[in-house]
Structure formats: C-alpha cells, structure tokens
C-alpha cells in the first residue's frame, strides 16, 4: 500500500473521530449555521413553489391583492388558532375547576410562520419554517395550527427554524384522552405508507375504554407542549402483553400544511 494512501486514511480517520466526538451542542450549532446559510435559497425555493402552485391552479392575482389576501388569511388563521387554543384551555380550566376547585387563566402568544420546505428524508419527518431566533423562536418551542399540534422546534437559526413533526418517531408527547382518565405517550412511526401517518399511543392501561374518534390532547407534562392541544383522534385500540396501544390519526394534515404558529410564550 502506498504511503500516501495510508496517510490519507489516517487523516480521514482522525477527522471522522473528531466529528463523532464533537459535543451535541456544537453539532446543533453547525446545523443551525447551515440552515441559516441556505435560508435565502429556502425562501426563494418556497416562493417559486408557491408561484408554480398558483400558475397550476390557474389563479393570477395582482401582487398587492395577493399580499393583502395572504395577510388576511394569516390573521384569520391566527384568530382561529387562538380561538381553538382558548377553547381547549377553557375546557381544561373547567375540568380543573370542577376537579380541584381553583381558577386558572392563561393564553398563548402565537407567532405565525410559513412552511418553507417539507423534508422527504427517509427516516425522519421535519420541515423548515421562515421564523428564527430573530423573531423569538427557540429550540423546544411548540408549533401548532388551528387544528392542533404540528411538532416542536429542534434547530433555530437566525431566519429559519427546523421543526420536528409530530409524525416523527423520536418526538414523544405525553397525552390524555378526552373524557377518560387515560394518559400515555404518543409518537410517530418510523415509516408510514401514506401522507397521513398513524401516530401511536403507548403505556395506556389494558382496560382503557377507548373508542374511535375520541380526541387525544396534550397532557402538559414535559414543558414543551401546553396541556389541552389537540394531537389527533383515536383510530383503534389494542391490548398488548403489558400495555394498551392506540393508533391515532393526526389532527393536522402534515402533507399540505403551509402556515403554522409557534407558541413563543404566554400572554
């Protein structure tokens, strides 16, 4: 073997080990920097996709009207999302009032965001949004729509952020089933055959009386997702050796989602 080959392999090995040993925080920053760097391309690509979609739909509008329409649409969705969250919150408060006898009031501060791209990575489900740290977005913030939970921010660059979708296997959320005392952990599946992926709730009791259509709500444990957000609805329930497992249809259509809201805090 030539000495240059051995030397090259040695240098390569050292670099690989160095990358593998990098602290997770550094890798996180690297990904953040990379997405920040390509954010202009992502924005341009997203607008080209939108333009193409507009042409495909045979709709041709004046720029101003389109912008105004977009703004109104965003406002409308924001109001609907706020309303939905408040309704969920109201039911949560009512439930707590009934059960514990105390009064609680809170509301969320929502930041509207546009989905720039939906990655078609084979084993991971995530998307990028056009909001970043300069808008107040940080890692581990919940992302929702008026229909329910979308996911959580895993990487926040200055102008864009990466959102891990609820359909990803590695995102686990503590949930409760509406109208029952049941609680469990919902997560996505590693590979789903369709654009409407099934979620799975584990650690339910074997005697749980769950029926299709029952709402699945976030339980509020973990600190990322406030309680009462809709995750989806029960599709079916089965009893395994040690636990009850339910499959869930997500509330949000993750394939067509264009706008979402980041919960940046409480009002």
């Amino acid at each position, binding site marked *: 073997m030539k000495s240059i080959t051995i030397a090259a392999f040695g240098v390569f090995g050292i670099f690989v080990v160095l990358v593998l040993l990098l602290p997770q925080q550094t890798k996180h920053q690297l990904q953040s920097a990379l997405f920040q760097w390509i954010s202009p391309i992502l924005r341009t690509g997203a607008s080209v996709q939108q333009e193409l979609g507009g042409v495909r739909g045979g709709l041709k509008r004046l720029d101003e009207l389109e912008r105004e329409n977009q703004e109104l649409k965003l406002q409308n969705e924001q109001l609907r999302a706020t309303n939905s969250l408040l309704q969920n919150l109201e039911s949560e408060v009512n439930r707590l009032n009934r059960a514990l006898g105390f009064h609680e009031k809170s509301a969320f501060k929502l930041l509207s965001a546009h989905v720039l791209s939906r990655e078609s990575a084979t084993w991971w489900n995530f998307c990028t949004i056009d909001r970043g740290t300069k808008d107040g977005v940080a890692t581990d913030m919940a992302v929702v729509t008026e229909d329910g939970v979308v996911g959580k921010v895993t990487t926040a660059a200055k102008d864009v952020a990466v959102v891990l979708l609820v359909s990803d296997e590695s995102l686990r959320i503590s949930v409760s089933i509406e109208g029952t005392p049941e609680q469990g952990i919902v997560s996505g599946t*590693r*590979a789903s055959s369709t654009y409407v992926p099934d979620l799975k709730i584990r650690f339910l009791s074997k005697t749980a009386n769950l029926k299709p259509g029952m709402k699945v709500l976030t339980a509020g444990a973990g600190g990322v997702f406030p309680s009462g957000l809709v995750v989806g609805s029960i599709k079916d329930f089965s009893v395994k050796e040690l636990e009850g497992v339910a499959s869930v249809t997500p509330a949000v259509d993750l394939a067509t989602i264009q706008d979402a809201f980041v919960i940046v805090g409480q009002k």
Partner: protein
Amino acid sequence: MILFFLALLALIFGSFVFQLFLPPVLLLHGAAILFAPAIYFYGCLSMPFPLTLALTFFTGTLSDLFTVPQARSHPDFPTGISIVIYLVPGLVMHGLRPLFLRNRWQTHCLLAEVGAVLTPFLLLAQYAMLSFERNEFFFSEVIFWRIVGPGLISLLIAPCVFFILTPLSHALGYRPGLPFAR
C-alpha cells in the same frame, strides 16, 4: 482536477438543497429521490484515493446535517455516522476505478447502475443504526420500499448524472483515463 473536485463538492451541496424540495414518491411508499449518492459515486470513480476520502467526509457530514434533526440531547443518530456509512460503498466504487478509467460509455453506464444498486445500502445502514439506537427492529413492506425505492429511482437517475458529469469534468480540464484509453 482540483477544479472538478470543487465542482463535485458544490454539486453535492446543491443536490442536498434540491432534495429538500423534492416530494417523496408515493407510488413507491414514500421513497425519496436522491441525487447526492449518484454524484458522490461518480466522484469516487473519478478521483484519486485521498480526494475520495475527502469527498466521503464532506458528503457524509452534509447528509447528517441536512437530513437528521439535531435535537439537543440524546441524538439517536449522531452526526458523523453517515461518513462511515458512505465510506463502504464509496470504497467499493473506488475499487472499480480501473474500469471507469477505460473511458468507455458502456462501462460508465454499467458503473452508474452499480452505484444505483449500492444506494439502498446507505439507507439500510441508516435504518439498522436507528433500529439499534431505538432498541426496536421491525421490517415492513413500507420500510422495504423506503430502502429499495431510492435505488430503483437511482437506476434511472445515475446514468444521466454520469453522462452530465463526464463532459463537465472535461470542460474543467480533468480527463481521468488510462494511457491506452486516451
């Protein structure tokens, strides 16, 4: 040669960005369309060994940064693993370099298809790694197509990529080939 190497780096980077906008193929159970491996395999065939390793390092690192969400704690697929995953088929392709250097379009076409056949290996290795980290291994029709599907798509893509990259390398003044083939 260095010019073409830099062009390959830029093309691999560009293909990773382009892949972000490509929807999965529903006909193949959501299989992804992958351009980067085809460009990488061409690089493995055309570049000398040290530059092949540099290309592997670049492609593997980018692959992880582009496709794996980097959650702050407990990553189940650490950044850098893909370098090792890319290295194995990359070395196989580099081993076939003498064939590539004959500079015949038929062998280039054949080698492009060999690269396409090796593409599912990348996904299979990723899947094996994930299953190991998540302590749960299962196999289904969907997973089969998620692994094999990109390879089938690459069977169509790879020859086109090869036939575009060859004139590009010539245009950039790099003409790899054995003396008798020139």
